[in-house]
């Protein structure tokens, strides 16, 4: 298996009001291509910080992060932006979109900026529409972002994250603001994407969401306390079994 993401001795410290807050302490992790990794942990444990630091959205204080073999700390802002544009996709808990654009425009915006696929605007639009069709939201393509439901909007965010055919998708509590039905729909789509070969790393509090992943990292006080490999459990192919096993493990971890 090819390693897509590798973090070595990753540290992140915030200084607020002259007080030092070590959010990540010597975190080491690797994510292989095609994996779907969930990061879990109590509030304030550093889950989101880990996600944003390994994805280059935020600068690390110490350590090293290799994305596809590239040390992201050594990349300048421009190169990092290029990397995020072409090789990474992002999904956030709040469905952030540009409010003056339609849903479709929001989805195709990164593709219009990218030279990765060297296609015409027409081709980009067709691909955007295809993604929307696939995720079942084509009917809201020309709607404003506040004319659609939360679930539709989060699926639109998934479309946007996919538009440049990234190597890896980072999702920060992608179902956190959704009801159960929408949450299941969104996770269904992410699982499908992963099955098609896209690596996914997501942060979640939801055991149901994490149970769909191949591996779960449990983080406490800025350190990875343990990891649980769901794929090794061949007998636990049923989602409910996976949830039960994961729950048991999380209980052991102190969840």
């Amino acid at each position: 298996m090819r390693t897509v993401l590798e973090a070595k001795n990753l540290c992140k410290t915030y200084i607020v009001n002259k007080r030092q807050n070590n959010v990540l302490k010597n975190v080491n992790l690797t994510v292989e291509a095609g994996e779907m990794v969930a990061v879990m942990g109590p509030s304030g444990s550093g889950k989101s910080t880990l996600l944003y630091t390994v994805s280059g959205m935020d600068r690390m204080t110490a350590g090293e992060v290799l994305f596809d073999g590239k040390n992201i700390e050594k990349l300048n802002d421009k190169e990092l932006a290029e990397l995020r544009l072409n090789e990474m996709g992002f999904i956030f808990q709040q469905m952030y979109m540009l409010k003056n654009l339609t849903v479709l425009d929001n989805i195709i915006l990164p593709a219009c900026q990218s030279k990765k696929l060297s296609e015409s605007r027409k081709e980009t639009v067709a691909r955007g529409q295809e993604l929307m069709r696939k995720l079942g939201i084509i009917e809201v393509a020309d709607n404003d972002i506040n004319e659609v439901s939360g679930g539709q909007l989060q699926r639109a965010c998934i479309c946007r994250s996919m538009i440049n055919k990234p190597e890896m998708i980072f999702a920060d509590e992608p179902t956190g603001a959704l009801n159960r039905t929408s949450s299941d729909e969104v996770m269904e789509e992410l699982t499908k994407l992963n099955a098609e070969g896209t690596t996914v790393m997501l942060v979640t509090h939801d055991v149901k969401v994490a149970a769909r992943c191949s591996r779960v990292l449990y983080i406490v006080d800025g350190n990875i306390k343990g990891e649980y490999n769901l794929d090794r459990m061949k007998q636990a192919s049923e989602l409910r079994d996976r949830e039960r096993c994961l729950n048991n493990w999380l209980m052991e971890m102190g969840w």
Partner: protein
Amino acid sequence: MYLRILKKDLKRKRTMNVILLLFITLATMFVASSVNNIISVTTALDNYLEMANAPDYLGTTMNKAENGEIETVLDGADSVEGYRTEQVIFMANTMVSSDNEEAEILGGTMLLQGDADMALNYFLADNSVLKDVAPGEVYMTGHMMEKQKLSVGDRVTITIEGVSKEFRIAGTINDAVLGSNAMSITRYIVDEGDYSFFFEKEELSSMYGGKILYIETTDIDAMLTELGEAGGSFMFSMDRAYMRFCYIFDMIVTGILLAVSVLFIVISFVVLRFTITFTLTEEFREIGVMKAIGIKNRKIRGLYLVKYALLAVIGAVIGLVFSYPFGTMLMKVSSKSVILTGENAYGVNILCSVAVVAVILLFSYGCTRKVTGYTPVDAIRNGQTGERFRKKSLMSLAKSKLGTTGFLATNDIVSSPKRYGIVTLTFTLCLCIALVLSATATTLKSDKLLPAFDMVECHAMVAINGGDVMTFMTEDGRTVLRNYLAEMEETLSEHGIPATCVQDLMIPLTVRNGEKESQIPCFQATGVKIDQFARIEGTAPEAPGEIAMTRTAAESIGADIGDTVVIVSMEGEREYLITALYQTMNNRGSGVRFHEEEEINYIQVSGGMSGQIIFTDNPGKNEVKERVEKINTFFGEYGEVVLAEQWVKEAVSVADTINAIKGLMTGLTIVLVALVTVLLERSFIAKETKEIALMKAIGLKNGKIYGYHVARFALVGVVVVLFAQLLLRPFLRLCVDPIFKMMGMEVAVDYAVNPVEVYVVLPLVVLGTTMVTAFLTVLYTKKIKAAHVAGLE
């Protein structure tokens, strides 16, 4: 609590508050200093005229046209309380020369008088009164000395009919009655002995001698009636109101600055409104929460009002402090020929500042009305109430042919018309200030203003030697003038310049309509047909016996087109039909124009306007310039020739001052545009932080974000340039027309613009300033990290 919240808010929105403070400061400074200056100049002018012992009425006569009869009439007139007389010699510029090689002795009336019978108080540079003049020395009108590039210590030689004497300029005088910019009369005051020296030749007194009568009366109309025909011998006369009017040019600059101040206030209010609305929109959560916990609307509005009250008070106090030196500086620039007496009216500045604070508070109170519209639900639902009345995104990236940067910028503008409408309005006002001043300065030195001086359109003006003009003021002056102009044309023709030469002469005559009568300056031009003069109504006189009149003159005697009036001249009374009305800035808008064939005894002529040269082969601008230079090489015997626009510039005399003010205001406009851009862009960044972070998160480079933000201002800038060009004329009508109207113009002047300045330089300066400032401000977004999208700091 208020103070704690206020302190936090002032710190959090530092840039915005500082810029707002600057605007309030500037608005206060301009309003206070301009209003104070207008009041100061007006009151100081009255004091100045009183201190100078200015009369109620002034008349000048020449010995050749008057034989002392007028003094006999004045002695017996009941309406005359008293009068003073100054004996003078009327000189032409050719009679004065200087050892200073740089000096340019300009045309226009020059008076030589002795120090024995000074009927007015002439003020020296230290504001003391001139008592006497040492033999061999001369004092001359200050601003005319400056215009003629003479300095104290220079030597001038006065030569009249072969009698010559050299004088050393001992100092300058301020002549309240004849020394205003509008009069441009140069008075030379010498020792009485030196003055008498010129009368050794007897004929000199009868040819050039004359007197100025300063008459005290409480009833000018009654006095003029009593003077009767004797008053007709006045070659020039004016009342106290006219004396004050002559300082109109000193008011122009202050008036324009007041108009600019009003625009600054409008800009300040637009910026204030934007800031308040923006702050309230940004703080809907806090407002919602305050309402949720039961704080009343009045209290919440009070919270914001305290902040704006504080800014208004601080800004007004700083503006008030700066308004004193600023006002003094403007006064020095704009009112050189008025002696300012007494204390500056400090109270006016304070009152203006208080008014600015009051207006800002009232305005702020109105703007905070929005607070009442917010509900606790807004705080809960993150500002989205679910209500929507129109589609937000009006354009589609999918369908657009624009690049992403261009699309995002254009889409933002069309999606938020109110927001960008305010930006456009602010910048349009800023650019209009610069354009209006540019057009005013250009007009005041353009030949387009010639009709406003009651002149025909021409290419060049010739300051015909005063001595020659005096030869026209004789019984056969008419023939002399015709021959003189024919000679001029022949001389020009010999040098390959086909031209028509024109000379206009003034004859002050009594004009009567029924019971009403008035002494009105009448004009007759030689070398041109009367229909070439501009009219505002009616048809040009077609034959002798028909006249054109200014509306001001016609109204003064209750006449109109179609009426027949009586004009009293030395030949007796004659009836004239008014066929047209015209306008002029000369003589406070008063005048009558005779048909060119009208027979008039030119011995009554009191003076001439500058001669005009019209090149009949319609040469281009550069050719005209070259010709004027060429003419000056062989035209010495007639007088100095200048371009028509140069003549206008000198006649208006404040063109240079307005030009300097224009420079100052253009600089200030640039600063304003830059400040507004910083304020707006910082506001946009504050509001769009999450969107910027999102763009970064999805991989948009900083450069793209900079480009997108700058492009929004660039697009607005382009619209502003177009709007400002469309609004230039209406703004000129609104701000500058009233000034010309004060000078007697009824129909607006034809404004001239410098196309390079108005269509290229100033728009580019504003556009460039906006874009550069927007770019420098948007660099701040570099601090916004992609992670901010998730609220991580």
